[in-house]
């Protein structure tokens, strides 16, 4: 694998497009062995879907020449050209509207938001133009679009870069909302999202991009997809159910390790899909363990955990042996200082304590 030669000077000239042919492609094959980072999983998923279907294209700020603000679209401009990897001017409302229009016309755009915080400037197009159009047009206009980008807290980026949007988009009929955790989730769910005829909001996490996960050869197959609407039991257990999504799945698994030392066998469910929510898997698990801890990073009121609680309370009330525990982010705009940020977000110890409370092992 030869390292790529990148002409950094090209970025200082006014017309960047004409210079793409001078940039050679860095070999993008995922790390050898049976590991893959989430970033490479996303990149390879987009790459394969673009190769398979000429209607798929990518648009967003910095996705082309800059190789992606988080390098998720690295190498795609070189491979597919500026017609299919569009660097957009800074207007989320503008390029989201344009993406939706392209989807109306039959193309399959993948719209990248630098973070979902900035997607708020485009939320009218996501909800009013994308989510509702199939219904309002009486089934005449479908919107096969994917909105993707980092969601939720990163590290030290303050209030306007840290909001979790899972609950807001998750309440909207017409949208599908998915939250991958591992590299396998990222590949399978993104491929499914791109192939899906409905608009999909694909919520990634910046801190997970660089994390390595084991992947099987099945996951590497170009036709590997995961069903949208199915959760995954990451770890089986018998004593308490812990539901989580995105980065919190990692925390929940570590909490399960801690709990195992005290003889508590926790079952960890990776939701994978916020809308549709896999109520069957959640309830089946609670009917086995009789206790539930629901975890999310976002704000507590009207959060995803509130919906999980409502579902379990409605469908498995008689099985519960303890009140449902909810762990969420603090009900404040995210502070910047590292110590305050840590206090504002769920930590592994919080999940452990909540599980023990549910098991009557602590207050």
């Amino acid at each position, binding site marked *: 694998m030869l390292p790529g030669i990148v002409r950094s000077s090209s970025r*200082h*000239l*006014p017309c960047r497009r004409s210079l793409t042919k001078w940039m050679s492609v860095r070999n993008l094959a995922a790390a050898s062995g049976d590991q893959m980072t989430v970033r490479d999983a996303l990149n390879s998923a987009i790459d394969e879907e673009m190769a398979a279907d000429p209607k798929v*294209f990518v648009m967003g700020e910095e996705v082309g020449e800059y190789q992606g603000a988080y390098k998720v679209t690295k190498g795609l401009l070189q491979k597919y050209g500026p*017609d299919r990897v*569009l660097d*957009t*001017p800074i*207007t989320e*409302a*503008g*390029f*989201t*509207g*344009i*993406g*939706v*229009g*392209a*989807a*109306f*016309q*039959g*193309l399959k*755009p993948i719209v990248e938001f630098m973070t979902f915080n900035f997607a708020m400037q485009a939320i*009218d*197009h996501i909800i*009013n*133009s994308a989510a509702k*159009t*199939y*219904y*309002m*047009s*009486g*089934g*005449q*206009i*479908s919107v096969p679009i994917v909105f993707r980008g980092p969601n939720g807290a990163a590290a030290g980026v303050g209030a306007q870069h840290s909001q979790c949007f899972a609950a807001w988009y998750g309440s909207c*009929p*017409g949208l*599908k909302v998915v939250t991958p955790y591992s590299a396998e989730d990222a590949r399978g769910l993104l491929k499914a999202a791109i192939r*899906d*005829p*409905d608009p999909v909001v694909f919520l990634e996490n910046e801190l997970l991009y660089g994390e390595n996960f084991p992947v099987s050869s099945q996951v590497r197959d170009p036709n590997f997809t995961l069903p949208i*609407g199915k959760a995954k039991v990451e770890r089986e257990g018998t004593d308490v159910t812990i539901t989580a999504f995105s980065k919190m799945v990692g925390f929940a698994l570590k909490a399960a390790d801690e709990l195992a030392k005290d003889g508590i066998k926790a079952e960890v469910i990776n939701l994978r899909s916020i809308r*549709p929510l896999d109520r069957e898997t959640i309830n089946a698990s609670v009917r086995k363990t009789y206790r539930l801890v629901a975890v999310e990073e976002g704000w507590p009121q009207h959060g995803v955990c509130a919906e999980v609680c409502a579902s379990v309370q409605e469908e498995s009330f008689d099985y519960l042996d303890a009140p449902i525990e909810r762990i969420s982010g603090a009900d404040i705009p995210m502070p910047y200082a590292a110590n305050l940020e840590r206090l504002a977000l769920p930590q592994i110890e919080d999940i452990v304590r909540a599980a023990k409370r549910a098991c009557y092992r602590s207050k």
Partner: protein
Amino acid sequence: MGLLPLLLRGAPKRFLRASGSYRSLYESNSRRRRHGTDAAAADQAVNSRADHRPDDQMLDFPGAKAAFTSRMEFISPNAAEAVPCFRILDDLGRALDGSDIPEVDSSLAVKMYHTMVRLQTFDSIFYEAQRQGRISFYLTNIGEEALNVASAAALTKDDVVFPQYREHGVLMWRGFTLDEFANQCFSNEAGHGKGRQMPIHYGSEKLNYFTISSPIATQLPHAVGAAYGLKMDRKNACAVTYFGDGGSSEGDFHAACNFAAVLEAPVLFVCRNNGYAISTPACEQYKGKHSIQLLAFVLTTSQYFFLFLNFDAPGDGIVVRGRGYGMTSIRVDGNDALAVFKAVSAARKLAVEQSKPVLIEAMTYRVGHHSTSDDSTKYRSGEEIAHWRSVRDPVLRFRRWLESNAWWSVEDEKELRGAARKEVISAMNQAEKKNKPPLSELFTDVYDTLPRNLLEQEATLRDTVSKNPPSLAPH
């Protein structure tokens, strides 16, 4: 760095000059390395550039290419003259001297006229129907019939239309039937929209007319995206989007225009500048003042003297923004069917053949109220409305031109008006009698395939309905 001088005007001479100054820069840098003084080397570099007169140097910032000037001159907010407005027929429907009449033969002209009359008739009758409580809402196109129909006639059926909501004539031209219009307004089970949308929010996939969406100007970036799709598919077609003077204030207008120009998307932006955005007059929608206009009104029509003293005349409309985005643009008399037909035909050709966006500002007047939720006599005079409804009626103007060609007669007029009225009333009565949409269409089309949670909800709802009085929901 070596490429930049070649891009400048008068390349060879300037290349030598510019590289001369760059050479001195390099030399001064090497001097700096010998002497180790940054300040002295910087002075040297500046001095060697200053050896050349300022106007020999060209702006070489990445953001723009222009000559420098030593005269500080602000660009005035308004050009000396407003952009002239293209027209072919005068207000009485007579071809102006020297105008180049487009190829509109009698059958096309008569078909256009039929559609305008049918549209006008439909609007009047359905407006009244809302007043009588038979439908909940209606919005008319009165005053803009020529703009609607003539622009539609200049397009092909493959061109995709992204309307705002005052372009029913475009849809009517394409073949949407009176029954289809009426069914949507009455939200009955035969309506294309399955009762999902308010009245007048028409749409037809078959006729390439995207379903009307209420938020203002969202259709503009949609049109650009669709145009991009057409370009990628190499179709002989363009996207056409309509919006009002008010819509041009939205952020989506800016993004769409900018993008269309940057992406080189084959899209026509048709601005129906009809003077009002609900109650906001154009002079409050955008800024600018033409003292020439002001003076003309004072001199010639003294009855308007006081009115215009209190108003700023509006700025030079939307057409002037085209240049700001690097877009070809034109201002046309939107009440002159022939001028609209010609301008849109030419714009379409440019868009499709050269893959460029075009901005067309069609000047017109909104004769009706904004909608049935508005009473415009609250913000404009009855005389003004009456003037534009009668003397400046674009349908009448076109009819006069038809009559001058002996393509239309008083008898034809009487017959058409009578027939149109009968057809519209019949469509209305039929639509009113039909059933409302069934419960089975309540949960469909949220997603491509009906998800399980919605099947469960439907089952629960049917159960509730069956156990309760029949008034809850039919079938």
